[in-house]
C-alpha cells in the first residue's frame, strides 16, 4: 500500500512540479515564457563543458570492464566481501556501481533475471542498485563542470558512502529476507 503510494509519487512528481512552477509564476505575474528562456540559455554551455570529463571516464571504465579486468578485480575482492556475507554473484555489481550507472543497472538487471527477482540475490541486487550511487561519475562531472582540480576529501567520502551502502544493503537483506 505505502509502496504503491510511493510509486505514484514518482509518476506524478515531474508533472506536478511543472504545473506548480507555471501556475505560481503566472499568479505572481512573472513573464513565464521569458523567464524560461532566460534560465534555459545557460543549459547548453554547462552541458558541453562536461564533455571532456565524460569521455575520460567512459573510456577508462569501458576498457576496464570489456577487457575482463573488472571480473578479475571482483574475484580478488571476493574473499574480503565474503567475510561480511556478500554472495560472490553480486561482486561485479558492487565493484561497478560507483563507476558507471548504466553498466551497473545492466549487471543488476542480469542478476535479477537470471536468479529471479524474488530470490535472495535478486533482492540484494535490487537494494544495492538503489542504495549506492555512481560516485565517480558524479565527482568527475560535477567538479569538472566548474574546473575544480583538487577534490580534497570528496573522494574518500564518496567511496566511504558506497562501502557503507553496500554493508547496509547486506545487513538489511540478511535481516529481512
Amino acid at each position, binding site marked *: 500500500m505505502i509502496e504503491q503510494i510511493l510509486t505514484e*509519487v514518482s509518476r506524478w512528481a515531474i508533472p506536478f512540479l511543472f504545473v506548480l512552477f507555471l501556475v505560481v509564476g503566472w499568479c505572481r505575474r512573472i513573464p513565464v515564457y521569458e523567464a524560461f528562456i532566460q534560465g534555459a540559455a545557460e543549459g547548453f554551455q554547462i552541458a558541453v563543458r562536461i*564533455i571532456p570529463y565524460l569521455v575520460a571516464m567512459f573510456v577508462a571504465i569501458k576498457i576496464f570492464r570489456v577487457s575482463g579486468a573488472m571480473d578479475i578485480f571482483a574475484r580478488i575482492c571476493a574473499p574480503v566481501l565474503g567475510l561480511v556475507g556478500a554472495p560472490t554473484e553480486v561482486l561485479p555489481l558492487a565493484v561497478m556501481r560507483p*563507476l558507471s550507472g548504466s553498466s551497473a543497472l545492466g549487471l543488476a538487471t542480469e542478476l535479477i533475471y537470471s536468479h529471479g527477482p524474488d530470490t535472495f540475490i535478486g533482492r540484494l541486487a535490487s537494494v544495492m542498485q538503489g542504495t549506492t550511487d555512481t560516485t565517480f561519475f558524479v565527482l568527475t562531472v560535477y567538479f569538472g563542470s566548474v574546473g575544480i582540480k583538487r577534490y580534497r576529501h570528496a573522494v574518500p567520502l564518496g567511496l566511504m558512502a558506497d562501502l557503507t551502502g553496500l554493508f547496509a544493503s547486506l545487513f538489511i537483506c540478511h535481516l529481512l529476507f
Partner: protein
Amino acid sequence: MLNLIWLFLILTGIGVAAYNGRIDLVTETFFSGANEGVKVCLDLIGLMTLWLGMLEIAKQAGLVRVLARLLRPLTVLLFPGVPPNHPALGAIIMNISANILGLGNAATPFGLKAMEELQKLNPHQETATDAMCTFLAANTSCITLVPATIVGVRVAAGSANPTEIVGPTLFATGFTMIVTLFADFCWRNFFRARRRRGRK
C-alpha cells in the same frame, strides 16, 4: 587520487586485454567509449536546458526562496560557508529533492547549477570548498524514497512483489546518508581545527 584511479582503470584494462590476446579490443573500446561519453552529454543538453528554464521560473516566482527558508535549519548546519539566501542553496535543495524522488534526469541539471553557484563563493578556483564536498557527500549518499528504475526491472522480471525492496532501500540509504554526512561534519571540523593550530 583520481589520477591514480583513472590510470589504474586504463592500464589494467589494456594489460588484461593484452594478456587475453584481445589487444584489438582496446582501440575499439576507446573509440566507442568516447562516443558514448559525448552521447550522454547530448542527452544532457536537452535536460539541462529544460530544467534550468523551469528553475528560473520557480526562482522568479519566489518558490525556491520559500523552500530554502523552510530548510534553513538544516542547510545552516551542513553548509556554514554559504550565506543563507544564496542561490546555491536553492539548487542544492532541488537536486537533493530530485534524488530522493528517484528523478535522476532532473537531479543532474540542478546539481551542475548548484556547483556553478558554489564556485562563485570559492576563493581558490581549482580547489573544492567544504560546501562542495558536503554537497557531493549528500548527493552520492542520498536517501532514496522511490527507486523507480529498479522497481520497473523487477516488474518486468515477473516479481511477485516488485516493491518489497522499497523499505530496505530506504533503510540502507538513510543509514548511509547519516553516516556520510556525519563523517563529513567530523572531517570539516577536524581539518579546520588542525589548520587553526597550524597557524599559531
